[in-house]
């Protein structure tokens, strides 16, 4: 059967602009057009652990994994309780999330320049772009529904991972090893408190 052109999906152009050797077309704004964006939905409070069950917590603007008994986890709730903000994605690539934590001020995890840091901002309600340094795609590991991977929306193929650096286990952004990489897998536990 031949493909039929759907009339509803056509866009009318009403103008042109020539900027920097590029010709831009201005579309007609008939409310059917939506810029690509991330739109914030309800946040979820969670505790993130790596596969060795070490808990992720924020310490002086860096993210560290440490073994922590439940009681300590609860006591340090402000540093261990991460807020997973789910975003609506205009091109569905998986569950888009921003990870933030409120210890003093609200800070959000950023992978800018492939370095993990905490930005002193609150996750915005809407981001007018398809890539962002604070947005990660949370997907489950195939066959292991309880384990999650976080891929950066800004750097494709780069995942949040736990890496040992001397005595510390730090949260970093790295390219996933094709031969099997368990350092990019985490468990996300909904916070009971």
């Amino acid at each position, binding site marked *: 059967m031949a493909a039929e052109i759907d009339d509803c999906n056509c866009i009318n152009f009403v103008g042109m602009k020539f900027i920097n050797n590029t010709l831009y077309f201005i579309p007609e704004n008939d409310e059917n057009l939506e810029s690509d964006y991330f739109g914030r939905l309800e946040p979820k409070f969670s505790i993130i652990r790596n596969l060795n069950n070490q808990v992720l917590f924020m310490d002086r603007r860096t993210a560290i994994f440490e073994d922590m008994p439940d009681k300590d986890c609860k006591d340090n709730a402000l540093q261990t309780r991460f807020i997973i903000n789910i975003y609506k994605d205009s091109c569905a690539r998986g569950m888009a999330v921003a990870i933030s934590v409120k210890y003093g001020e609200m800070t959000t995890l950023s992978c800018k320049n492939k370095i993990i840091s905490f930005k002193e901002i609150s996750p915005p309600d809407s981001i007018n772009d398809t890539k962002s340094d604070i947005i990660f795609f949370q997907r489950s*590991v*195939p*066959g*292991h529904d309880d384990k999650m991977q976080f891929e950066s929306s800004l750097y494709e193929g780069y995942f949040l991972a736990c890496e040992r650096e001397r005595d510390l286990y730090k949260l970093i952004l790295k390219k996933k090893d*094709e*031969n*099997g*990489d*368990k350092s990019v897998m985490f468990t996300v536990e909904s916070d009971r408190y």
Partner: protein
Amino acid sequence: MLYLGWMFLSLVAGERMKGLNISDCYTRKLLWIYSSRSDEEFVLFCDLPEPQKSHFYHRSQRLPTQGPEHLPCGDSKDLSDVQWYLQPKSGDRLEEITESSSRHIIQEKNTLSFLAPEMNTAGSYICRPRIRSSQDVACCVKTVLEVKFQPNASCENPALHKQYLLLGSTNSIYCPSLSCQSGVQSPEVTWYQNGKLLSQQRSNPMVVFGVYDFHQGTYVCDYTQSDNTSSWTVRAVVQVKTIVKDTNLKPDILDPIQDTLEVELGKPLTISCRARFGFERVFKPVIRWYIKDPDREWEVSAPEAKSIKSTLKDEIIERDIILEEVTQSDLRRKFVCFAQNSIGNTTQSIQLKEKKGVLFLYLLLGTVGALVGMLAAGALLYRHWIEIVLLYRTYQSKDETLGDKKEFDAFISYAKWSSFESEAASSLGEEHLALNLFPEVLENTYGYTLCLLERDVAPGGVYTEDIVSIIKKSRRGIFILSPNYINGPSVFELQAAVNLALADQTLKLILIKFCCFQEPESLPHLVKKALRVLPTITWRGLKSVPPSSRFWTEMRYHMPVKNSKGFTWNQLRIIPGVSCWERLSKTEATGRSSQPSKRWSHLPSSPRDRDIAGQNTQHGSG
């Protein structure tokens, strides 16, 4: 010329081949044991010795760390781009292995894959880098491949060459070539995954703790088998796939969801059924279309099912049913989509319905038509209400005039000519209407009894008393309204009649609008109200003169209902004279018969002066 060219080419080629001294290559021996039961693959790796990492000096000498069998290869080239050659067992000539050499041999990077064992597979395979410098003559690997056919008679349950690992669990990969060994100790096994050596794994079977999706791939297990003369490496290849566990759910029909579908008769129709099946290792999905008649059910031959989407956990399969033309009998049938897997089955049936649009249109038209019809009927009825009532009256035998002890059917009141006024044309008309036309039509034609003050009342009585008594004796009061009437003394008659009508239910008043007039302010309140409320018939001059005009029809409508027999008799005027005399004898008020001949007059009457009592005007003979 051509021959020379070919000679030259072969020389050059031979030169190149000759440059390859295969005796210097690192040689090893591989054994491929296959049974005819399943598709068995084989791989050869071109594991050229890896170039050393960073050096401070130029690498031209052999490093002591490398064993004597490992010949150095320069590090300036890409070791994944290699060229394979085959020296078949039979001949001496080296052949290059290219893409078109054989259907069963595929080269991927530095791996040579054999998809199936063949007759001429055995031989020596040499591999060396494609781009090389002259000093790397010895950079090559020679693999002597031996192929042996061994039907597995000694084993009931050998490991397969295709194995499945359950994701999330702990599973093992079994080396097929060792599975049937009944030896006491299993030898050391070298495992490779996708060409890479797994140095941690040494045993058979290879245990995978926590299966993940990256464990999927091509695994190679090697072990050494030595006999007296030489040692051979026995190699087997296993294709490993990571799967989830089998579903425990029945298939799910995603489409169609609704039970009915609107169609157009005579047009072709395609209904698509999509079902989602959970993962099963032994996957035998069934998706079919059935047609269900009231008495029987049969399967439809439909185009083949196709898989729309296949993921780790489930697969969506679609199958269409095509009807070339929707017929009336199709509307009575049910179309059933049936999906089944090893757990169970689900069905979804569809009923075809004709598009409501056509029916709706008919309904709409019908309703509109009915409404219009009703409106027209209503208008017609309203227009001819009077005629209908009259028609009804002629066929009913009710007579309201019986038993009410009244003498006259109607009393006519009109503007009398006053001596103070000059003769006006209108006054003439009014009087003529009252004294001539009314009696002629109502009495003669229709047989009513009228009472005219001048004619039927004996003179000499008090005017007001006479009026009141006449009105009391009449069933109806007819008042001819005009400016003269309203502004003159005769309006007293109207006033009296209104008062009497309020008391007497059987007295009804009829107003005749002779011509336009203005209501004076001095009129009594009651009269004003009466003028507004009472039934009014408009006199339209000459048009209303003939007895068949609308005026007279309306008059009859308001006149009392009489017995149809008498009516008809009167209308026929069989014995007009008799009726006249009869009536006259009944009148009380008139002591003496007053001008009977008047009834017969058709000529316009001259104005009479009421005050001149006893005056007997002679009219023309009737």
